[in-house]
């Protein structure tokens, strides 16, 4: 029996410490998904902790037929989809931007982004890049964002994503195409630059 299984068993019996140890292994991954999904560090913390609370409540139903992370990811997706529905109901236009100021003021929470570790100039550059990426993500619908993250960050297949989000594989593919093009626009990575580059490299004649 692996260490993880032992922790799961103890957590199933109501041991909070065991559950927290279990959470420690995956909390960065779940938080990263929530951060890119919500584009807001505060909201990402709330949403990721909601995932953990749901996981704790449903842990009794975990039989170990699938891996723990696969099971947890299923809960994560459901929590995100519910969040998406609630947000859609509450706000008609939920566009939100990840602000530089927010990154700086996160010290109160003890939430210092990794960028802060670097030199000021480099830090500014990296923060601008993060801001651009987040803006790019805000141009997508919540569903497109989720699909993009499940594919790119989680490495799920089209079929797995389609099943989890209850959409067709065609919708998954379209969402990915739109996501990558939107990000390309925001990040200023244009195909034309490369086309020009290739044109220059092509032998004359």
């Amino acid at each position, binding site marked *: 029996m692996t260490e993880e299984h032992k922790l799961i068993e103890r957590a199933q019996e109501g041991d909070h410490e065991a559950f927290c140890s279990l959470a420690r292994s995956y909390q960065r991954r779940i938080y990263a998904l929530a951060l890119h999904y919500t584009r807001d560090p505060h909201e990402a913390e709330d949403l990721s902790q909601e995932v953990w609370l749901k996981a704790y409540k449903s842990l009794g139903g975990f039989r170990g037929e699938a891996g723990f992370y696969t099971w947890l990811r299923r809960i994560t997706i459901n929590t995100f989809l519910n969040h998406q*529905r609630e947000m859609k109901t509450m706000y008609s236009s939920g566009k939100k931007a990840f602000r530089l100021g927010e990154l700086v003021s996160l010290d109160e929470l003890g939430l210092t*982004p990794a*960028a802060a570790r670097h030199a000021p100039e480099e830090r500014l550059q990296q923060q601008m890049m993060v801001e651009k990426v987040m803006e790019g993500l805000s141009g997508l619908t919540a569903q497109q964002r989720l699909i993009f993250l499940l594919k790119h960050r989680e490495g799920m297949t089209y079929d797995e994503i389609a099943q989890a989000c209850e959409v067709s594989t065609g919708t998954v593919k379209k969402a990915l195409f739109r996501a990558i093009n939107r990000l390309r626009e925001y990040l200023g990575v244009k195909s034309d630059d*490369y086309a020009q580059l290739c044109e220059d490299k092509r032998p004359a004649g």
Partner: protein
Amino acid sequence: MIMHNCVKTRDRLVDLVFDELGTEARRRALIEIESCPDCLAQYRSMTETLRVFDRAAETAMPDEGYWPGYEARLRERLRGEGPSLKQRLERWIGAFRPLTARPLRLAAGLALVLLAIGWWGWQRRHAVEPPKYAKNKDKAIPTPQPKVESRDKEIVVLPKGLGVPPKKFVVTSSVGRSGGTRRPPEGGTTNTVRRVERGGDIVEKNVVSRGYDQPLIAASLFTPETIRHFEKAQLMLRSFRNASAAKDTAATDLAYEKQLSQRLLYQNILLRRDAEMKGNLPAEEALGSLEPFLLDIANLPDRPSPDELSDIRERLHRKELIASLQISSAMPSTPAYQNP
């Protein structure tokens, strides 16, 4: 020599970038892309975008110092949570341990016998008359829709394919009989159904109804408020499903269904959260499966085109949601045939 087609190739770029092609297909696609500068440029810009995204994702993650606080907050929230269902069940079972003493065991046995007698008596009071269809139960059941017919008939409503015992209603009508209404069998409920017949005459029918096992199960799982919500949702979904396009235009007017769906959606969210808080998983699941439909209908344009509707209707049909709601909302006092 491969004939290159930019449109086709670009269609496969997403598959290539997100690694959805097999080894051989990937190799062929890369060879083809390399032969076309435009496609190659597009491919490279896509991969570069993902690389930049990954770098930004890494940068946006909080410092290591953040995680102890995160864990502390999680621990705090876990403390606020009640014990899980399994733990509650174990505690409940543990409460019976003192019953090992003989007098207590005897008393508990007696109480169980009394309970069984009470339950049997109650069941007898609400006993089902054997339905006429019982002899031919192997035959196909025509429809899950409840119906009220004008002559004395027994109607059996059987929602299909839900893996639950069937819900049965006995409906008796006194229309066309001289000598007044029939007396309902003991324990039955009499409902008067008014219906406008051809020619404008109002016909009153006394309907005797009974709900049996399934409604009782539903009653124990869902609150009366949730059951009323399911009834409303069921009616709205039926109206949505049956709405047809106006003769002069191709679009269907669904303004009413939309408005109703918006109201139901708010209610649904509140009920789902309530069920979630109480750890009522069946209610949470039932409300959760209804919610996407309410949301989709609420977000439809006022006069949607048939294409916009067909997707929702198809999903509605596939999930057999109306039949599920019919079961969930059926209770002895509120039989489903009240809305013919």
